[in-house]
């Protein structure tokens, strides 16, 4: 096992632990999304941060409520720590899925 793989696994574990341990407000006072500020409608990624925190705690229903593609987003995020051919396919398909979801969401 190379040092690179160990580092990646350690980083992924740290990320998961942080998502599991910490929490963010379900209804934040301030939203950082520029698209939401401009249009008053959620962007394709809105709710994804809250959904990732909920997913790490096993709250699937809550996560999907925040963003319906939260499991896909989670898979894409953790795939970043894996340098393989699957990652490119997952990201290409994921970007298209989020784009389509964004259109329906607006």
């Amino acid at each position, binding site marked *: 096992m190379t040092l*690179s793989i160990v580092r990646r696994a350690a*980083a992924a574990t740290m990320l998961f632990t942080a998502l599991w341990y910490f929490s963010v407000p379900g209804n934040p006072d301030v939203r*950082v*999304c*520029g*698209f939401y500020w*401009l249009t008053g409608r959620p*962007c*394709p*990624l*809105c709710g*994804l*941060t809250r959904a990732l925190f909920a997913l790490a705690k096993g709250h699937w229903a809550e996560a999907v409520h925040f963003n319906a593609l939260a499991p896909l987003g989670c898979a894409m995020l953790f795939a*970043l*720590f894996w*340098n393989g051919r699957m990652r490119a396919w997952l990201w290409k398909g994921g970007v298209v899925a989020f784009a389509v979801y964004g259109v329906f969401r607006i």
Partner: protein
Amino acid sequence: MIPPMFCHKCGTQVSPDVQFCPTCGTSLAAGAGGLSSAPEIPWTPPAAVEVHAGRWISEGWDLVTADLGNYVLLALVFTVLSGAVPVILQGPMIAGLHIFTMKKLMGRRAEFADLFLGFNYFVPTLVASIVIGLFVFCGTLLCVIPGLVVAAMYKFTYLFIVDKRMDFWPAMQASHAVVKRDYVGFTLFLLLIVLVDILGALCCIVGIFVAIPVTFAAITVAYKEIVGFDPRTVDAL
């Protein structure tokens, strides 16, 4: 009367009809013709890339502290001019900051005027700064993080324009080809760079004039390690 000619490398006065400097042997044709019309240098993306963000920033810091006066002056002029004429001057001056560090890394004499050598690539750097700015803005609109990834994707663009004589779009693609080997690593590198700038700004604001050159030097160091400089570039500048 024909004006006197000088070697652009060593400064020796040379006869207008010679092709190479009799003192240092540098080709005078490249210097006289400029680089804007020089052909693009073929380049193949590396198969694997290792991101060493901490070491790159550390080497950037060493470069800046070794010539603090020049670097602070460069950052000051860069900030003032970029603020005075937003958008138009930013791209060429970023290229100039990279050129200054490139010269240092190649053991050449770097001077304050190098900041303006980026104007030899005015059109591609200007268009690159506008296009990258638009992409980053659109990415930032979508809950910020995509904007960070896009900014990370294109941070070697100006170096490809200068070093490999690429136009703005091939340079952006080349930068992306490098960064896509490790999106996480390069995005973390970008976040570290932003952190350095924030820490600099927290040091009574003036610290930013040290932080800015450190970040550009770190990117140049990373480019040298991953892509490598074309040896002809610095001589021809």
